[in-house]
């Protein structure tokens, strides 16, 4: 018997992987949650049939969304993480001794429960004493914060599902308002390759660029995401992601990483021509 999981990246393109075992399946109040065991990618978490992470390549995403801002702003102590119920982002952040507080806001408690059970490699630091978990709508949570955080990480699902509210101007504005005057917001910005994804990426970049004085995009290669090609947004009130980057200070922390390096940090902000054009199109 053959069992395959597949996900459409466009109506005409899909990614498929062989499944050894369907480990977990639950319809929560918000979405359908599944965890599969696969020969190539290890355990795979999907929400509404979209891959969120695989054990094999999650390190790329989780390292790039955390170490980039942490290496730019040496004073990050108070962090808000939105989404990210699997725990991978928190795992990376708790490696920094200077971090004093992490508020994790996830709308769906079932995601945490599933990941604690089946993805311990990601969920392992959710019980760190600095981590405070809130099961709430992120828009509602952040409305009540003002000049509070040094860093906000938006680790959302794609903009066509229950996370749609996290790609809006009102959300980015609320993040701006919740950050201190040298604060940084990093978000997963989707993929620029397929047309529908590209348009959504442009829309959210436009909204971020009109909200923050500094708004840059950087990239990474993530095999199981659409086109294997993923973007992150770096929005900031004060620090430039490359000009204010202190490679020596980060190297001195002696953190071992598998994807992120200080050389890659700079390189990730050099974008292909088509993408530069797409971003410029919406920046004015």
């Amino acid at each position, binding site marked *: 018997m053959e069992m395959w999981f597949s996900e459409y990246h466009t109506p005409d393109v899909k990614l498929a992987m062989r499944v050894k075992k369907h480990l977990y399946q639950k319809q929560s109040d918000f979405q359908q949650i599944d965890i599969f065991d696969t020969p190539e990618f290890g355990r795979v978490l999907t929400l509404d049939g979209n891959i969120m992470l695989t054990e094999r390549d999650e390190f790329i995403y989780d390292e790039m969304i955390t170490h980039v801002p942490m290496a730019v702003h040496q004073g990050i102590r108070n962090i808000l993480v939105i989404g990210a119920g699997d725990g991978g982002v928190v795992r990376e952040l708790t490696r920094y001794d200077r971090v004093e507080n992490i508020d994790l806001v996830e709308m769906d408690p079932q995601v945490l429960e599933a990941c604690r059970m089946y993805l311990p490699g990601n969920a392992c630091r959710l019980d760190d004493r600095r981590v405070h978990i809130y099961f709430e*709508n992120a828009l*509602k949570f952040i409305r009540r914060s003002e000049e509070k955080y040094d860093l906000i990480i938006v680790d959302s699902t794609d903009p066509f599902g229950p996370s*749609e*509210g996290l790609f*809006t*101007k*009102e*959300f980015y*504005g609320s993040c701006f*308002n919740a950050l201190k005057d040298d604060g940084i917001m990093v978000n997963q910005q989707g993929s620029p390759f397929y047309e529908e994804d590209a348009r959504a990426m442009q829309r959210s970049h436009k909204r971020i660029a009109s909200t923050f004085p500094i708004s840059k995009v950087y990239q990474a290669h993530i095999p199981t995401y659409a086109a294997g090609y993923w973007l992150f947004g770096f929005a900031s009130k004060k620090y430039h992601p490359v000009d204010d980057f202190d490679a020596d200070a980060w190297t001195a922390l002696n953190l071992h990483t598998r994807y992120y390096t200080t050389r890659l940090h700079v390189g990730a902000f050099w974008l292909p021509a088509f993408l530069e054009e797409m971003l410029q199109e919406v920046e004015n």
Partner: protein
Amino acid sequence: MNTRYHLDQTKAPIYEALEEFRKMRIVPFDVPGHKRGRGNPELAACLGEKCVGVDVNSMKPLDNLCHPVSVIKEAEDLAADAFGAAHAFLMVGGTTSAVQSMILTVCKRGDEIILPRNVHRSVINALVLCGAVPVYVNPEVNASLGISLGMKREAVAKAIREHPNAVAVLVNNPTYYGICSDLRAIVKMAHDAGMYCLADEAHGTHFYFGGGLPVSAMEAGADMAAVSMHKSGGSLTQSSLLLCGPRIQAGYARQIINLTQTTSGSYLLMVSLDISRRNLALRGRDVFHRVSDMGEYARQEINAVGGYYAFGRELRDGNAVFDFDTTKLSVHTLDIGLAGIEVYDILRDEYDIQIEFGDIGNILAYLSMGDRPQEMERLVSALAEIRRRYQKDPAGLLTQEYVEPQVVISPQEAFYADKVSLPLAESTGRVASEFVMCYPPGIPLLAPGERITEEILEHIQYAKEKGASMTGPEDPDIEQINVVQ
């Protein structure tokens, strides 16, 4: 099964007949000419095969809206049962046609009808059609919010006393903002004086199915009600219901409806009424509980933002605000220094959020069975952001005052009179022969037959400056106005 119903509300006779019809695979040598979409593949692709497949003509198995005897009659009986009416008519010309048929059923040329000035344009249009004369009751105004309220009992009593020959009293149940007059008391006053009581329930369909919502017209004993099923009831745009109490001769009302209603009633609209009525009868209570709760939640959150005032049941005063519809979400914006129209525009242009309307001092977001909590959070956050980014000194913003209309001649006389077109600024003192209104909400600032005053012109000018979408006059730029010669 709800015991308040006498008929089996799980039935949907028009829907069932259409399903049956589809299975029979009848060959169409009748209208419509698209023949189940085959003749117009682009239309079929846009709307879907299922949709064009039920866009069919009246025929024996599907009944006829002009003279229903089978499935449409059954659907009307079920609707009457669900709404507690003696008779219900399925309407396919919008609630405008329901309102007009209601007024034409009880009024003739020269009859007086008592009504509040903040009626929808369709009401005054009906007076143009039939030649009845309006007797306006001053709706109370909440000066700090700048909105018209309901009619006070004593104001209605006074109008009845002064116009004992009037044939009917018309009541908004509720107003666009969700405000209700004391409908039971007004019905009693009207009936005691030998008059009919009519209700414009364009914004009150859900009153028939909610717990904790204001009383519905049929429950209060009103004689007729125009009910916008396509607003809170969930049916397709332009479908509506006209309800009658026991004092109305249904056969005569049908004749009146047939004066102006199409003889090619759309089955898309009718089946949407049938299915929506079934849904409301079976699940309406739960549905509107949820909508009400969402409204209350939104009010709390918006008021917590500061600066805005999302008003609710606390406005109730036992008279001009006898009751408040908690599914309505109206927000007063002037205290953050922005007119409602400005907030309305910013929400759409910058936040991709379309709300129902903005007037001088308020916005209204329409909540319904289709809303979800995550979109509600977006609306609240967008309002918080607009305040953070645009808040300014509220000085210099006008509030909307009620301008007492001076009715000089009947709307019909004014509409058909010989007229002359004047620049707005030169029209002071003349009698208008056409409407001027912001749309939505579509409540006239000026109606045919009314004296044009400085105050009204100032109001029109201000609304134009703030970007309100104005309609009514022949002149699309609203620079000229037609006045009676």
